């Protein structure tokens, strides 16, 4: 039923109609009418962040942990520009979020008004789509379409820029209805290609499933179908950083993560396989290593909802455009109807080879002495939290890779990390978003001290809204990954890669009213972690770790999958000049 109301009220009404229960935001002059409406209702909780970047990452964390789109509300000008990093992050990782920005009144646009920025211009390349709404009557259809675009096809961030006069003016509110716009991405895969994939599955001697964030984005049903297909075929499976949890880490066919800091067995399987089934991953450069040496013997199938992912960097033999869930359902149906065939004897040999690679035990490390190894800290964190209803966020760097290696994920939507953009400062606000989506769960942000400081102001948010997020900081007083690259590539000249003048994290926590824990002795670690888990409130855990530990295994820049460094002994002179220009 169409009703008359102000633009500001329409915004709130549209959010309610779209099932939104939480908005992360920060007020300012150009969104005051919307904040006035938020003040006068109880359906939507508003989480006041301390910086707009935090709002966007929190919305991302919320979206990834709940499967629902995240919503942010920020003001014009600096509010909008502060949201840009989060938008780009969400675009790279295909996270559905809706960012609402205030704008100066329509009659002032272009006059360099106070807090004016060309928000749709600035955010055009870092959103999936954006709108500047100049008529109040258009506001509700645009709001509903924004949710449709953010969540359909390959998900992504969208932005709606709303001038202040449009918020004040009265217009007609159109209720939400199924989108009739031309934007309706294809979800069913082509049956000819699916048949070709099934035929390849039936005969493959050395197959591998290589899965990515697309499986998580497709929804829980896709993860279930993937598990069924993997277990029924008996094929090994590896995953990108983004796809962890789609197949359980305890599953018998699990190889662990692949890529630059992936497991030896996973990368060797990728290199030597004869059938690679890419499900919802995008042949990112962290995965492929040297392109001309990437999996040279394999036939490659690629299931992706985004046609532009197919053949972008790696030539695909069996391209299937469609939603992972829909396509896997069809693949299973066809494979079963054709008699559930696989090449059993070849598979047995393939697994024998895989077991040999596994026996290298590429993640082994020795915890001795009085200094905590970061790997050991994560191993203990895993052991002491795995029984919990647990969600893990990370910042970006060495700790992120160690977390991916040493923490184990049994379910999708449990792992929130900035994969594509690699945004330091992502994890803390993301953990706040996750905790909002799952108030009773144990939410841990595995961080490095440098990343964590990038959005430390959000400790105020966590305190204000009583969100008991656990900040597990592996403090090596270094920008660990930068330091590692300088050691390997730049003659051990550690240019600006150490953290000078660090705060006392315990006192910092206490300054905000939170709990701080410091731990430097391996013998105290378990008790300290238990103290963190058992504390009802935000905790800042300052875990002092070995300062010069490098992250292994590692595929150096410009090298192939079968050219991995397994430890310190392998590192001398491994990256040539050509490799050193890569990132």
């Amino acid at each position, binding site marked *: 039923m169409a009703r008359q109301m102000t633009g500001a009220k329409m915004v709130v009404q549209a959010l309610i109609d779209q099932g939104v229960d939480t908005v992360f935001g920060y007020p300012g002059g150009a969104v005051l009418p919307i904040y006035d409406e938020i003040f006068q209702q109880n359906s939507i909780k508003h989480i006041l962040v301390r910086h707009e970047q935090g709002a966007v990452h929190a919305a991302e964390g919320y979206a990834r942990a709940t499967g629902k789109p995240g919503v942010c509300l920020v003001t014009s000008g600096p509010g909008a520009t502060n949201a840009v990093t989060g938008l780009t992050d969400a675009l790279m990782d295909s996270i559905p979020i809706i960012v609402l920005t205030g704008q100066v009144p329509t009659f002032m646009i272009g006059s360099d008004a106070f807090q004016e920025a060309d928000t*749709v*211009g600035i955010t*055009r*390349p870092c959103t*999936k*789509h954006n709108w*500047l709404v100049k008529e109040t009557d258009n506001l509700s259809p645009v709001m509903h379409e924004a949710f449709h*675009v953010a969540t359909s*096809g*390959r998900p992504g961030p969208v932005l709606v820029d709303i001038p202040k006069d449009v918020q004040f003016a009265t217009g007609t509110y159109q209720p939400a209805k199924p989108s009739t716009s*031309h*934007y309706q991405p*294809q979800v069913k895969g*082509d049956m*000819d*290609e699916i048949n*070709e994939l099934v035929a390849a599955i039936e005969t493959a001697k050395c197959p591998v499933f290589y899965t990515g964030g697309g499986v998580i984005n497709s929804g829980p049903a896709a993860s279930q179908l993937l598990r069924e297909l993997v277990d029924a075929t008996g094929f090994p499976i590896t995953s990108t950083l983004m796809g962890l949890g789609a197949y359980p880490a305890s599953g018998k066919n699990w190889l662990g993560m692949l890529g630059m800091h992936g497991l030896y067995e996973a990368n060797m399987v990728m290199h030597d396989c004869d059938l690679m089934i890419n499900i919802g991953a995008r042949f990112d450069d962290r995965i492929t290593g040297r392109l001309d040496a990437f999996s040279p013997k394999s036939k490659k199938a690629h299931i992706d909802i*985004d*046609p*532009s992912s*197919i*053949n*972008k960097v790696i*030539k695909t*033999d*069996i*391209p299937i*455009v469609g939603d992972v869930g829909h396509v896997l359902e069809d693949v299973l149906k066809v494979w079963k109807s054709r008699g559930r065939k696989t090449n059993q004897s070849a598979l047995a040999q393939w697994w024998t080879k895989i077991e040999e690679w596994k026996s290298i035990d590429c993640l082994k490390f020795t915890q001795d002495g009085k200094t905590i190894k970061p790997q050991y800290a994560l191993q203990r964190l895993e052991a002491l939290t795995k029984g919990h209803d647990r969600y893990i966020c990370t910042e970006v760097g060495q700790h992120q890779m160690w977390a991916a290696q040493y923490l184990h994920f049994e379910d999708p939507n449990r792992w929130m990390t900035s994969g594509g953009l690699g945004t330091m400062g992502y994890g803390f606000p993301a953990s706040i978003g996750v905790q909002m989506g799952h108030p009773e769960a144990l939410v841990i942000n595995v961080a490095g001290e440098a990343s964590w400081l990038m959005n430390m102001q959000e400790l105020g948010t966590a305190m204000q809204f009583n969100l008991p997020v656990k900040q597990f900081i592996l403090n090596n007083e270094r920008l660990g990954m930068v330091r590692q690259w300088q050691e390997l590539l730049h003659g051990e000249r550690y240019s600006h890669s150490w953290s000078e003048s660090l705060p006392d994290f315990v006192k910092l926590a206490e300054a905000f009213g939170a709990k701080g824990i410091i731990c430097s002795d391996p013998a105290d670690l378990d008790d300290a972690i238990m103290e963190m888990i058992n504390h009802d409130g935000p905790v800042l855990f300052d875990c002092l770790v070995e300062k010069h530990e490098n992250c292994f295994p590692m595929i150096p820049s410009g090298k192939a999958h079968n050219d991995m460094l397994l430890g310190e002994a392998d590192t001398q002179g491994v990256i040539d000049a050509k490799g050193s220009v890569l990132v």
Partner: protein
Amino acid sequence: MSALKIKKGATSHSAYNLRPTFSDVVEKHTLAVLVENEPGVLARVIGLFSGRGYNIESLTVAEVDHQGHLSRITIVTTGTPQVIEQIKAQLGRIVSVHEVHDLTVEGPSVERELAMFKVAGQGDKRVEALRLADIFRANVVDSTLNSFVFEITGAPEKIDAFADLMRPLGLVEVARTGVAALPRGD
């Protein structure tokens, strides 16, 4: 290798991967892109080309369906087959884009461009310019005692040829619209 088995020239889902990719040969393609006629849509298309490092040789845009709110952007671009496929796929996923057609591979098409040439000169050169314009079926749209403005329509190669001839005859200024193109037949 198999290609995506999608009918030629159907919708935005069709415009990728009809031929073998990963060749090093740089090809020139004319793309017709039907877009929502809304503010910023041209910036989205151009931003894609600049942001991802693709070439634009020529670009024209105008509304073609007032009621349907559709504009047609005709882009002439160059790249290896892989890059061309990427361009089409990337264009296809812009939310404001309705259809992407690769006129170069979807069958025969006609391409036309309009150009205006200002040629200044006197005496024999002026007579020669007028004579050549007649041969090229260019119209005189402005004339003074010292200059002509010619209007010429044709394939880009024809316009290039006319420009080459006018240059020694006193060519002062050129304006070209860029290519508009349609598939032949029904």
